Every structure is written in structure tokens, then in C-alpha cells.
């Protein structure tokens, strides 16, 4: 357990000296801010022909999609770079178990993501100030729980893919492809097939968020889905490193 923390701490600190992480953080928060500003204008001036209700969904909604774009950039380096730099040999000959390494890497990235999300709380806070009687805080909690679970699953898959490659770019694109499949393609048959489409609807990564968590419905099946994906990603990573030894 302590090893997980040691590795996570190093990864977390590393994000703060990594240009990629700064670019990701900057774009992530700036785009949320822009969308937020446009929505506020729509709500107050009501010139654009639409006016979303003033609640935290204007923040968590776009954030979920931005996670999909940001995660591969944050995770591509995690294990692929250790292989490239030869430091994998250092870690695998230190008294560290494979799963500790993978979970530590994931935790470091997850904590960084949580930091970004904590920074984004400023937007619901502004909304709280400028609306009367304030925003629906339960809805906000549910939405944030959703993005946190989503980030956990995204990052775990990213770490798992990163363990398969010794090249960051390959890890980035593969992760992106997997996300596209899970986000858009898996759920698609549900709209076409008349019956027996529940399984596709359940496997759809975006559905659990947009139809449940972001609407204030915390479902057990949604939590189980995201946590299962997290476990699967970490398992892929651990297995990949174990097989790397046997090659």
C-alpha cells in the first residue's frame, strides 16, 4: 500500500512540471470557462434562442466530454515512458509488485484530475452567487460524482493501454480509439435494434453519465459499470507488465 502512495506521489508531482499536463489543464479549464460564460450569457441575455436552466449541468456536461479528450494525454506517458527510458528495469527490480506500480500510476493521474475538477468548482460557485435561490446542490453532487467515476474509468483504461506500449504516441491514439468505441459506438446498436438492446445501452459509457448522474440519478448499475471499467483497465495494465517480464 505504501508503495502505491510513493508512486502516486511522484506521478502527481511530475504533472506539475510537465508541459503536457499544463496544456491539458489550461485547455480543460479554459473550455469549461468559455462554455460556462456562453451559457451565462444565454441565461441572462437570452439572445441565442436557448436558455439552459441555471444549474451545475452547464459545467459537468461539457466536462465529461472534455475528460475523454484530456485523459489520453495524461495517461499516455505513465508506463510507456518508463519502458522507453529504461526505468522500468529499476521499478521491476525494486521490491514493488506489478499491481502496486499500475495502481500507483493511476492514483497519481486520478489525483491530478481531481485537482482540476476541484478548480472547476469555481463555476458552480459563481452560479450559486448569481442565482436566487441558488443552484440545486444535490444535482451538482450527482453530476460531480458522475465525472469523478468517469475520470476513474478513463484513467484506468489509459494506464492499462500505456502499459502495452513503449511509445507514448501509440498509447495516445490507441486509448483514444478505445474511448471513441466506448463513448459512441458501443451504444449505437441500442438505437437500431428493436429488442434485446439493453446490453448495448448498459455498455455505453456516455449513457450512464448523461442520462443518470448528470440528471441527478445516482444508480447502482452506473457506479458498478464505472468501477468495473476501472478495475478492468488496471487489470490490463498489471497483466501487461507481468507478461512483459515473461517475454
Amino acid at each position, binding site marked *: 500500500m505504501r*508503495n502505491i502512495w510513493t508512486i502516486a506521489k511522484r506521478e502527481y508531482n511530475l504533472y506539475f*512540471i510537465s508541459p503536457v499536463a499544463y496544456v491539458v489543464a489550461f485547455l480543460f479549464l479554459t473550455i469549461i470557462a468559455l462554455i460556462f460564460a456562453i451559457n451565462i450569457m444565454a441565461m441572462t441575455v437570452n439572445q441565442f434562442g436557448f436558455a439552459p436552466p441555471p444549474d451545475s449541468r452547464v459545467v459537468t456536461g461539457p466536462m465529461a466530454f472534455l475528460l475523454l479528450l484530456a485523459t489520453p494525454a495524461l495517461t499516455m506517458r505513465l508506463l510507456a515512458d518508463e519502458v522507453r*527510458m529504461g526505468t522500468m528495469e529499476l521499478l*521491476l*527490480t525494486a*521490491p514493488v509488485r506489478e499491481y502496486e506500480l499500475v495502481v500507483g500510476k493511476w492514483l497519481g493521474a486520478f489525483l491530478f484530475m481531481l485537482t482540476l475538477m476541484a478548480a472547476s468548482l469555481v463555476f458552480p460557485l459563481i452560479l450559486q452567487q448569481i442565482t436566487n435561490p441558488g443552484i440545486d446542490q444535490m444535482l451538482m453532487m450527482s453530476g460531480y460524482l458522475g465525472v469523478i467515476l468517469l475520470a476513474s474509468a478513463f484513467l484506468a483504461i489509459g494506464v492499462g493501454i500505456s502499459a502495452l506500449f513503449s511509445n507514448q504516441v501509440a498509447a495516445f491514439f490507441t486509448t483514444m480509439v478505445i474511448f471513441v468505441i466506448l463513448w459512441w459506438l458501443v451504444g449505437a446498436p441500442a438505437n437500431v435494434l428493436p429488442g434485446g438492446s439493453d446490453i448495448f445501452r448498459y455498455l455505453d459509457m456516455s449513457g450512464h453519465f448523461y442520462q443518470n448522474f448528470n440528471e441527478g440519478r445516482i444508480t447502482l448499475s452506473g457506479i458498478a459499470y464505472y468501477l468495473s471499467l476501472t478495475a478492468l483497465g488496471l487489470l490490463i495494465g498489471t497483466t501487461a507488465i507481468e507478461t512483459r517480464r515473461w517475454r
Partner: protein
Amino acid sequence: MIEVSNLTKDYGARRAIDGLNFEARQGEITGFLGPNGAGKTTTMRILTGYMPPSDGTATIAGYDVVRNSLEVRKRVGYLPETVPLYTEMTVFDYLKFMADLRRLPDAEDIIEETLEMVGLLDRAGGYIGNLSKGMRQRVGLAQALLHRPEVLILDEPTIGLDPAQIIEVRNLIREIGKERTVLLSTHILSEAQQICDRILIINKGKIVAEDTPQNLQSSLSGAQRVQLTVRGDAAKLTGKIGGLDGVESVILNGQDQLEFQYAAGSDARPAVARMVVESNFDLLEMRTISLSLEEIFLTLTKEVPAESEE
């Protein structure tokens, strides 16, 4: 203590090491000598638990490297061939990270002590990326020494160092080797000769010789070669020396120098010396030329044309 028995590793169809058997004892520095691609790094990677062998067993301090990998890794300090460093970290942070992974108490003191051992105390706060190759090598060494391991495995520890640093590092290794088990690989023969108590010569995955540097030299040289310097025309002596008992051959090396060889069983030197003096020549020097480790190495690792590669 390292015990290796019948250790074999295949990379696909290629056999990197083939049935290695050896021991490295505590308090001894064992040198692993061989040309590139002989299987030195592969063996070390198996011993440190980085990868498992295809066949055979290896134990370190009584623990099997496959079944008790974690216990082995706790007891081994390893400096890989390409020094694994995080260039974006400072020397201190890097060592702190490794100390934390090894769960060392009082990490700060230990790091300071270790940095002093490798002579990098003044660079503790500097980024590893800004260090020279020699300094990086020493950071890697510090990492391997951090937990004061029972067994130290060093893959080419002096590569990339300048002559002064090489001497420092060799002294350091010798110091460490007094109470620990050290296994180091090198392809610098003089280095193995200088710091190792025992040498294993490995070629194509097999151990071709194993002994102390001194024994290797004498046992493999067979005939003894002696160089003779005299005042006067040495050519006149060749015939006389060649006629003596036990002398196998005489070669003229220069105007006043010749070289003769005698069978290892009989010492022809006194007879030769007497003969030179009795022939009214001044004997200036008589010196045994031992077959250098370099020559032994080349003989042992020479390509055998009949052995075809697949």
C-alpha cells in the same frame, strides 16, 4: 551469496544463456567477463528478478529468484547497464523516491551518507538531467547502494567514467565487496584483473573459464615465456640457449634482447642465466612475460568456425 544452477534463457529461438552454473560468495567480488552479447546482462536481469529464466534455478541469500522474487529484490542492489534515472528529478528526490520504495527509515540520513560515498553530496539538489554521464553513473550506483544490500549486482559499473572516477568507483566497489557479495560485469579485462577476486569468463551463454585472476593466467599460459636483455650481441646467444635442457624455443627480439620459452614443468632460468654469464655477456634483465588476461580472453572466446549460427 549467489548460487546459480543450470540457468538457461531463450529469447525465441535464440539461446542467450545456456546452462550456467556458478557461485558468488560473500566477501568476494566476482567478475563476469565476456564479449558483448555473451549473456552477461541477461544473467544479471534474471538474478535481479527483472525476468524469469527459461530453465534452471538461481538463489540469492537463500531465496529463489522466481518464487521469492520480492525477498530477493529487497536484498539486491542493482545497477543496470543503461542507468535508469528520472532526468526531471533532482538527485535527492530520485534517491528519496527509491528509498521510499524500499521503505528505508531515516531516508534523509541514508541518502546523505550514500551521496558522500559516491562523491555527489554537492549535487544533491541538482537535476539529474544536468549531470554528466559519469555523475549519472554515480547516481545509479548510489541508488544500488541505498539499502546497503547483501548482494550487489553491477552491470558495467565504470563505463563512461573518466580515469580518476574509475579509480574512485573501483575503490568503492572493493570497499563494499569486503563484507558483501558483489557480482559485476565488465569487458575491460584489466578492471576484472584489478578488482575481482574471482573471474567467470562467459562466451555465447556458457562459462568457459572460472578462477582467480592469477590462476587463470598461470593455468592457461602453459609454457613460460621469459624475456632476456643482455649487453652485447644477443644473436650469438640464441643457439646456445636453444641447446639447453627444457628450453623450447628462442626468438631474437632486437639487438640485445631475446625471448625464450620453457616447459612449465622444468625451470630453465638458472641454467640460462649461468650460461649467459659464462659466455661473458652482462645479464641486464630477465623477466617473465605472463600471458596477459587479454590474450587468455581472446583464446577462450575466439570464434570457432565449425560452430555455425542458426
